[in-house]
């Protein structure tokens, strides 16, 4: 048995919705779910943001809105319920993290082990800019190009052919 056989997909081929998870995952048929409805626009926005930033744990690499997996469906419904009961974003996130760990967060939490992740790009930018400044400062005055002799120029013209005018 090759549980991965359907994972064949070409490079960059986002073979998403079809990809059944390799481990057997929730539910033969999920009951049809009505679209979620909310009491306020604010709650709707909170919900939409959350289902885009939370990861579907059974899937390859999808958030809850992308996934058609029954578990994703259950989680969407659970989150909608919580939001309609007045939960705010952090409460929903805490609820999910308590059950599935930091893995469910597409926005990694800021803590000891993720400082490098969050501040790494800033550090790299600073290093890059420092190097840039250093080079710009040192290069201000250097000029090292050697002129060609007439003889060399003659030969060059022969090599490269006539390409007098088009230098952009």
């Amino acid at each position, binding site marked *: 048995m090759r549980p991965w056989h359907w994972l064949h997909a070409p490079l960059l*081929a986002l073979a998403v919705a079809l990809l059944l998870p390799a481990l057997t995952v929730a539910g033969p048929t999920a009951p049809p779910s009505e679209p979620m409805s909310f009491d306020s626009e604010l709650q709707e926005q909170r919900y939409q943001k959350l289902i885009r930033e939370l990861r579907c744990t059974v899937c390859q690499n999808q958030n809850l809105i992308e996934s058609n997996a029954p578990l994703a469906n259950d989680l969407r419904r659970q989150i909608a319920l919580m939001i309609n009961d007045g939960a705010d974003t952090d409460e929903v996130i805490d609820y999910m993290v308590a059950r599935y760990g930091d893995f469910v967060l597409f926005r990694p939490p800021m803590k000891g082990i993720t400082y490098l992740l969050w501040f790494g790009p800033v550090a790299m930018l600073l290093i890059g800019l420092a190097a840039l400044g250093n080079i710009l400062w040192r290069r201000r005055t250097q000029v090292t190009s050697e002129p060609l002799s007439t003889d060399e120029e003659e030969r060059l013209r022969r090599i490269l052919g006539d390409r007098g005018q088009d230098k952009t």
Partner: protein
Amino acid sequence: MIAELGLFALILALLLAIAQGTLPLIGAARKDAALMAVGRSAAYGQLVFIGIAYAMLTYAFVTDDFSIAYVANNSNSLLPVQYKITAVWGGHEGSLLLWVLILGLWSAAVATFSRSLPREVLARVLGVMGLVAIGFIGFTLFTSSPFERLIPAAMEGRDLNPMLQDPGLIIHPPMLYMGYVGFSVAFAFAIAALIGGRLDAAWARWSRPWTAVAWAFLTVGIGLGSWWAYYVLGWGGWWFWDPVENASFMPWLMGTALLHSLAVTEKRGGFKNWTVMLAILTFSLVLLAAFLVRSGVLTSVHAFAVDPDRGLYLLAFMAVVVAGSLTLFAWRAGKVGLGGGFGLVSRESALLTNNVLLVVSAAAVLLGTLYPLLLDAFGLGKISVGPPYFEAVFLPLMLPLLLLLGFGPRLRWKQDSPTEQLWRLRWIFGASLVFGMIWPLFVGSWSFLAGIGAFLGLWIIGSSLKDLVDRLRLRRESRQTLGIRVRRLGRSYVGMQFAHIGVAVVVIGITFVLGYDDERDVRMAVGETVEVGGYGFRLDSLDQVQGPNFDAEQATVSVFLDGQLMTTLTPQMRNYFSQEQPMAHTSLHRGFFRDLYVNMGEELPGNAWVMRVYYKPFMNWVWAGAILMAVGGFLAASDRRYRVRVRREDEATDEDAKLAAKDAVKANDSGAEPNPAG
């Protein structure tokens, strides 16, 4: 028989690759003309044999030869014939064969179009490409042969994943691979220059058009992938910051940096070490992409089947190639001159800043992509790094880059006056700021992101056009017709402006679609209407329809604008005969200012469905911008100065190369650059 022929051809191709990867290099070292000449014929021969292998596999697909395991896994007798042809690259093994074929194409192209190169240089370039080919053909033969037999043969094939049965997938992988593999040419030129001990302006001039073409293909490839995902996945997403997408985006960013750095090396003889470093890094990221996609170290929606042997092989190959190159670099670099000096404000400094920002962006994407792996490797837990992270990191890096993009191309080489340029662009800057901030009001409620996006987009377009006009005006007194004057600008320059305007169009598209899309998941019964983005969508009927290898439930949705019928959309929920899961098929109405997007979700009791009804403003600007960028790349590569081929090839020597290098620097020092400010 077909499979064995294909395998045999592939083995012959490997032998030729070994010849191509060794003899010309030895010849170049010994100054042996005969050995050096082997490179070209070996490259052609290799292409022929890979072509035969590829044709055999295609033939097996078209004739439904399910005695070949790969065909049985990726095709089906009911599959329409155009998808049988594209199914060749529908899985790991076949896509690798396509990769190898494209590598052969690039090798042969170098052999054909670089006849004017000095013998040693051409020999070394082809030699390095031969070495790369050995790695990939070997990988195909030893770990991933598409010609393996299935005994007994299958009665019917498993079918190509329905997601891949789409016109977008016919051209996406070849374009993407043309880009990926194309960077091997820039890499080969860099390594050849390091081996020859000569990094100079001539080297930059030779490798620049190849780099531009590869970059343009990669741009098209990434754009197509995104375009395809947008309508196939059915929820309106078009960029996911998935590891595999990042894998293609990193070489693109690094390749963009390389393209700009090459300009300095060619024009001013500067940044040589840096440019050669970028050429190596860009290709290293291509190898890394191949590794990430094909080894299974990261979870991705588009990863290939997992096989540890393949991962190990690719890792070893990448280690040898990259470590070898970096060692060569460490050994050889530093022996080159610095090139012309330049002031704090100059074209050089602008391009260098561009490079810093692009390289840091690529590094940030790399960090985000590999960070979960890093934590896991040290046993520190599992985390996910997704779009919120990449957006937070990426946007701040792009802002200064886009702002700079308006100035950079106008700056003079060596030294320019910042106040003067600012002064000349003051109207453009002010107007784009004002119109940029106002524009979003016509699309929806004002948002900062959209305002900034519109401002930067208009700023880039405005300053590019102004520069174009200035340069044309400069030649006015020559009394030439406008056509001639445009031609005189050179395709390199026009291509650059195309690409920059393309960037602007992408930026406007992205910020507007992010800011103003309207996405509704709604319950719709027959006869019901919903309002999304100012359009009315009415579900008229639900019918059963029949496709070549599926049957489907089809919804007919009429779209109204101000009470007028505008169009009719027909999304489907397809049941492919070979699959268990149904698959939604999106229906789209594309437009210049917006897309209307309807998709079927789940069936509900009472003749109703959950429908995904989306309004995506400015969506097509994203792809249109990518096309402009690619057109720019192709134009730049076709510039006249890259097409000089005057002498017989055997005349050229290393001596000539050195001369050409000095000339390039000198020509620019002498102010051959047309200067709009002058």
